[in-house]
């Protein structure tokens, strides 16, 4: 259990955050740049001291202003992966990896050195210096270094932000593996919804120094009242579905949720696991009659449960799109023009069919929930 309640004045910006979350899997802190995400993790790490409040992780109090408890940074047993790798330039990769490990209490050294190296694929770098490594390699070493300190919790502050798109997709699977292989809870700071949908189980929305909402990723990303915070352009629904089977011939993966079947492009995920599918509102179309001869593979019937309000674009002009929520067993958001809304005479409660193009669900829209896989080593 992560229990956080912190206040800190920073110039004329105030961080006043309070949330609780299970420590299983990945807890993502999401918000705009400057919303206070980094300040929050820095306070958990002890790099920044709250003016008042309480920080408790799995029953261990790290900070409590009422009881004058403020554990020193090196006593907190947190692993921190920074935006920049912050490897020690004068030490070899091996010494960098061992830096935290040899300082961890002997009885806490449960994470196996060789296993971390093999999972992160950094065995061949051992005797090199950080300056000869690529950005992606450095970040993998930084991840290993934090992990090998055998922390109670791993903090990751936008660990992919300094990498280009290609490097990002190279590192993401490693973070997924760390999440699934080593039983260490992770607090992951990001302003990229793609990363969060792929990695996180719990979402903490940070806005202007405060916590706007806390809950499962699927739930919060589907809520229209949080749309402003979760991102408008890519707005949509996130559905948790089980991998049913792979269709090798057509390169498709069948997923099921609530007895419904959805087909998406082939993903590298074992049958039986729960995956997270994000369906962007702009990729869904609506029909009043059951369409038979259409190219969309995924057709769901449902009732309109909510019609969103007219709203303004980011630049202040009025938007002519409207978001509609269709209940297909789970809430599914659809973005259509106001013209269609009027033409189809859509009202709440009306029966409609939602059509989703499989190809619109790309690799980046799919994530796996935390699984604790059996170790194969």
């Amino acid at each position, binding site marked *: 259990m992560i229990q956080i309640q912190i206040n800190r004045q920073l110039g004329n910006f105030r961080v006043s955050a309070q949330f609780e979350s299970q420590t299983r899997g990945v807890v993502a802190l999401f918000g705009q740049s400057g919303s206070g995400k980094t300040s929050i993790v820095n306070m958990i790490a002890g790099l920044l001291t709250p003016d008042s409040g309480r920080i408790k992780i799995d029953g261990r109090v790290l900070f409590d202003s009422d009881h004058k408890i403020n554990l020193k*940074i*090196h006593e907190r047993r947190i692993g921190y992966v920074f935006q920049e790798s912050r490897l*020690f*330039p*004068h030490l070899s990769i091996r010494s960098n990896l061992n830096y935290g490990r040899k300082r961890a209490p002997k009885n806490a050294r449960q994470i196996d050195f060789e296993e971390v190296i093999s999972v992160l694929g950094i065995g061949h770098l051992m005797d090199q210096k950080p300056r000869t490594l690529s950005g992606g390699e450095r970040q993998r070493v930084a991840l290993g270094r934090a992990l090998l300190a055998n922390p109670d919790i791993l903090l990751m502050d936008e660990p992919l932000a300094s990498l280009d798109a290609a490097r990002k997709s190279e590192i993401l699977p490693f973070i997924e593996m760390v999440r699934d292989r080593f039983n260490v809870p992770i607090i992951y700071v990001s302003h990229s919804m793609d990363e969060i949908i792929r990695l996180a189980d719990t979402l903490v929305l940070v806005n202007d120094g405060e916590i706007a909402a806390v809950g499962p990723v699927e739930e919060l990303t589907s809520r229209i009242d949080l749309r402003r915070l979760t991102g408008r352009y890519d707005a949509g629904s996130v559905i948790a579905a089980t991998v049913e089977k792979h269709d090798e011939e057509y390169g498709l993966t069948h997923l099921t949720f609530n007895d419904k079947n959805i087909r998406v492009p082939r993903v590298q995920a074992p049958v039986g696991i729960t995956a997270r599918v994000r369906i962007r509102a702009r990729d869904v179309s609506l029909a009043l009659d059951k369409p038979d001869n259409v190219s969309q593979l995924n057709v769901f019937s449902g009732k309109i449960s909510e019609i969103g309000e007219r709203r303004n674009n980011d630049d202040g002009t009025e938007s002519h799109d409207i978001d509609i929520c269709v209940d297909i067993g789970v809430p599914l958001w659809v973005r259509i023009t106001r013209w269609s809304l009027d033409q189809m005479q859509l009202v709440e409660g009306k029966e409609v069919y939602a059509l989703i193009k499989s190809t619109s669900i790309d690799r980046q829209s799919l994530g796996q929930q935390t699984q604790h896989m059996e170790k194969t080593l």
Partner: protein
Amino acid sequence: MDIFTPLEIEAIWLSLKISVWAMLWSMPLALGTAWILARCDFPGKFLFDGIIHLPLVLPPVVIGYVLLVTMGRQGFIGKFLNDVFGITFAFSWRGAAVAAGIMAFPLIVRAIRLSLEAVDQRLEAAARTLGANPVSVFLTVTLPLTLPGIIVGGILGFARCLGEFGATITFVSNIPGETRTLPIALYAFSQVPGGEEAAFRIVVISVVIALLALAGSEILARRMQARIGNGS
């Protein structure tokens, strides 16, 4: 060793001994001072900084005279040290080491401070999160990354000590075998008729020692650079 006259050997030996001792006491102190100047903020820091730099801007004779007044047998520091520990500084090689160290001090502090300020404090924060206490962070991260500055400071300071003249001759005078270092020997020879040849030999010795020190520092600095690199 018939390249050098016994007198020259004596002067070379004294110069090296005094410089080494001057460095031994001033280096750790300079490291601490540089750390305070680079990392701490306190009222009066400007004044502190100014006092540290005084030997750089004052005529060396002034420093020598102040030392003579305070650390001489009748000076309040000198009297205390003599009474309590039985150590005298005036007119001894120890006094020369004190004078040389003081004159070199600001140079060493400057070099170390520059290097210390260039150390990325985010690396220190990372070390703290990995479980290192502040002392351990200093020894394993800050100090190794400051090493190039410490070496440069050491070389500069050593060279300054070897060349120290004004404060030394004022404080400890020109005593053969005790305080007559190379520069003082050179000055002495230049003051007597027919001393040109002996003076010239000391000039050559000084140039050779200086060149050797420079070459040594260059090699060390390169090795450090290769070790630390510039990547993060």
